[in-house]
């Protein structure tokens, strides 16, 4: 911009001096132009190349080469190093609570809530309820009340059935925690109504009820009679993941302190099948939750409040584990959480878990999204009339905004009846749309990788089709002229 204007006159059009630099310069400019035009000609090829590298990177994710071994990064956690006091007497209590719960399983929320509240109160805890959740507050003797750990068990399990054993476990835990003076955190035990709504309702009210900050949480989901594996579900709302230390701590504790093996998403990883397929299954399960932003367990609603949490899902089986294993796992995990002096910040927040004990760090999976995004962006560089294109994009944004207000994507059907642009304006609009979409993919991938991949895979072929169709139309129009 600055180069255009000087006080002096612009150089004379006829005053070319043929020095050797001039010749060299001319060659440089010519070569540069050749390269640029070559690239411009082969943009579709470049796009294809980027897309294929991106997709093959994605397909390479279940391959072991991209993985690293997990480790607990926060030194304070010291998982599975404590003596556990949860024992058969507590299991007996849990069984008694379970009998009571089975009787009131189909009662109204008020009745169930009053039962749980009074059970907690009998254990010496202050309890209360919000409109969709019952809670109890454990204040251990030596805690200052400034930090709190949340443990929840909702009435409905993620299977859709009742989570009675989960609630019984929580009641037994409340009884167990009273009187122990080695806890530095307060505990809030929440029994939320239905699957997610109860816990979400509680979280909305939490800050008016309690002063403690919540750093970590656990959710118990125990639908069946016994369990053979502890499944860990870690995806939150909008694909937010907890700090990886939470997942690794629970995995470590469950194996060494509780004694039960771990699974992610209840995917069976035991059979000695091809590691690639198992990893792909894990990743697909993760994608199926995160791509649409669905939480994979009730802990997901806690992600919005900066709480790192996972759901312990006891996959139903005839298997050997029950309240005892779960109780000890819970106790040891809570003891590890109890050691924390700072909010979890050491380990990764963005990761993919292809298998228990392995993870894929950001740097190893993000380039796939960046390549896909770049392939779309490159398609948008040839924009002749940016202003016209922008004008045609405005209705799209308006529709999107209305759809966001009304919370429905069906509003986009309106786009079918709107007038379409023609010719250069159409091409410019498509180019700008490419640029915008291509900008969206890598930025979204930083926050929610599966969702970005989903949008990229829908968008890429879609835009390619539109592109080629429009170019063909352009070609015919140009030739006709």
């Amino acid at each position, binding site marked *: *911009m*600055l*180069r*255009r*204007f*000087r*006080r002096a006159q612009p150089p004379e059009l006829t005053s070319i001096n043929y020095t050797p630099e001039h010749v060299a310069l001319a060659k440089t400019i010519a070569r540069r132009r050749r390269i640029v035009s070559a690239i411009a000609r082969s943009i579709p090829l470049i796009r294809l190349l980027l897309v294929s590298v991106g997709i093959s990177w994605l397909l390479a994710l279940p391959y072991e080469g991209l993985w690293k071994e997990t480790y607990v990064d926060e030194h304070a956690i010291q998982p599975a190093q404590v003596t556990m006091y949860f024992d058969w007497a507590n299991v007996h209590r849990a069984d008694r609570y379970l009998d009571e719960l089975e009787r009131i399983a189909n009662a109204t929320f008020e009745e169930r809530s009053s039962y749980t509240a009074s059970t907690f109160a009998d254990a010496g805890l202050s309890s209360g309820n919000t409109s969709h959740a019952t809670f109890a507050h454990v204040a251990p003797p030596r805690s200052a009340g400034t930090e709190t750990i949340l443990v929840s068990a909702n009435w409905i399990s993620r299977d859709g059935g009742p989570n009675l054993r989960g609630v019984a476990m929580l009641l037994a835990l409340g009884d167990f925690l009273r009187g122990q003076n080695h806890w530095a955190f307060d505990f809030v035990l929440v029994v939320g109504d239905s699957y997610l709504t109860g816990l979400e309702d509680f979280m909305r009210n939490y800050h008016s009820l309690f002063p403690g900050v919540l750093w970590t949480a656990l959710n118990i989901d125990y639908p069946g009679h016994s369990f053979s594996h502890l499944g860990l579900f870690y995806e939150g709302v909008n694909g*937010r993941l907890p700090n990886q230390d939470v997942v690794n701590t629970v995995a470590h504790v469950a194996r060494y302190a509780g004694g039960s093996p771990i699974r992610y998403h209840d995917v069976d990883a035991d059979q000695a099948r091809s590691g690639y397929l198992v990893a792909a299954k894990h990743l697909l399960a993760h994608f199926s939750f995160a791509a649409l932003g669905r939480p994979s367990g009730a802990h997901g609603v806690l992600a*919005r409040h*900066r709480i790192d949490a996972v759901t312990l899902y006891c996959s139903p089986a005839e298997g050997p584990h029950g309240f005892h294993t779960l109780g000890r796992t819970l106790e040891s995990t809570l003891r590890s959480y109890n050691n924390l002096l700072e*909010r979890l910040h050491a380990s990764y*927040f*963005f990761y993919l878990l292809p298998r228990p004990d392995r993870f894929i760090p950001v740097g190893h999976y993000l380039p796939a999204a960046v390549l896909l995004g770049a392939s779309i*962006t490159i398609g948008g*560089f040839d*924009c002749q009339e*940016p202003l016209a294109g922008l004008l045609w994009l405005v209705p799209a944004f308006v529709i999107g905004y209305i759809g966001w207000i009304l919370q429905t994507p069906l509003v986009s059907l309106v786009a079918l009846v709107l007038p379409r642009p023609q010719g250069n304006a159409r091409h410019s609009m498509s180019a700008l749309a490419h*640029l*915008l979409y291509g*900008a*969206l993919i890598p*930025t979204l991938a*930083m*926050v929610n990788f599966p969702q970005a991949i989903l949008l990229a895979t829908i968008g890429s072929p879609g835009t390619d089709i539109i592109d080629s169709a429009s170019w063909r139309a352009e070609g015919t129009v140009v030739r006709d002229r």
Partner: protein
Amino acid sequence: MTSSGLVLIAGVVLRLTLFATSIPALLERRPELSTPLTSVRSLKEGQFILAQGSDPYAGGVFHHSPLYLLLPAVPLVYTLADAVAAATLCKIAKERKALVAAVYLFNPYALLSCLARSTTTIDNAVLIAAIGAAGPLSGAMLAVASHLSLYPVLLVAPFAVRSRWSLLAFAVSFSGMTALNTVIFGHSWMRASWGVILTVSDLTPNVGMWWYFFTEMFEHFRSFFLGVFQLHNVIYVVPLCLRLEPHIAILVLVAVFSTWKSYPTLGDAAAWAGLLACYPDVVKHLRHPLFTLTVHLYTFILLPLLHSLWLLTGTGNANFFYAATMVHGLNSSLAVT
């Protein structure tokens, strides 16, 4: 003139309608649009404390110029400021006036700044009015603009080249306003408003390069780097005035300090984008406008995203937001050159 008048009315109507929705409440606290020096929240706090009879600058949150204490922070004032700025731009531009007004009024940076009731809107209006005025009036308006946010004082040189009288008017108005403010409000305002601009004592994140730099800085080097950063803005004044015609020098200087001032906002970028639109010859020869626009789009998305990632969700790191500000700054710099 009528088409630009229509554009003006459309811009005003758009702003007034959007003020009636809930969008402004979402925007008021965004750091990209308002800094501690320009946010409406601290303005209202300062006015409240003044109404209670105490020194508004003693609270430590109020860094606005004392002139703002008299300003009612209502949406209409900000809308009018934008309208005045657009009208002045029309006056500066010689052709395509409607387009110029539209570029300023519908620039998302300017629009969102106005909705956020960031005083950048008013700063811009006064600055553009100063540029668009002639003779002594421009000097006086430049003095007002310098009072509101210190950096327009760098424009004294090209203004002086443009018209000798503006220099005199500037000196007189500036010292007059300073004296008046000191008489009414005492001495505390200078340290709280200009002092903060010069010494960067409030490190709230914004889209500039300065805050993270001085957050991570050790005490030992602070004054040195403060000097370097402030000097960086000053050194371009003389060469630009020597090399370029005054109106282009003003344009470039505005671009320079919009990017490199201690507390920039996106609204500052809107000011020089609007000025740029007034000179179509310059626009025609922009080297890579599309690239710049694209990167602006990227940073427009990235900045609030990464800011919330850091401060709302707590998963990201301050580095991400910082990197985005780097990109934004670099991009603006490239656009300037």
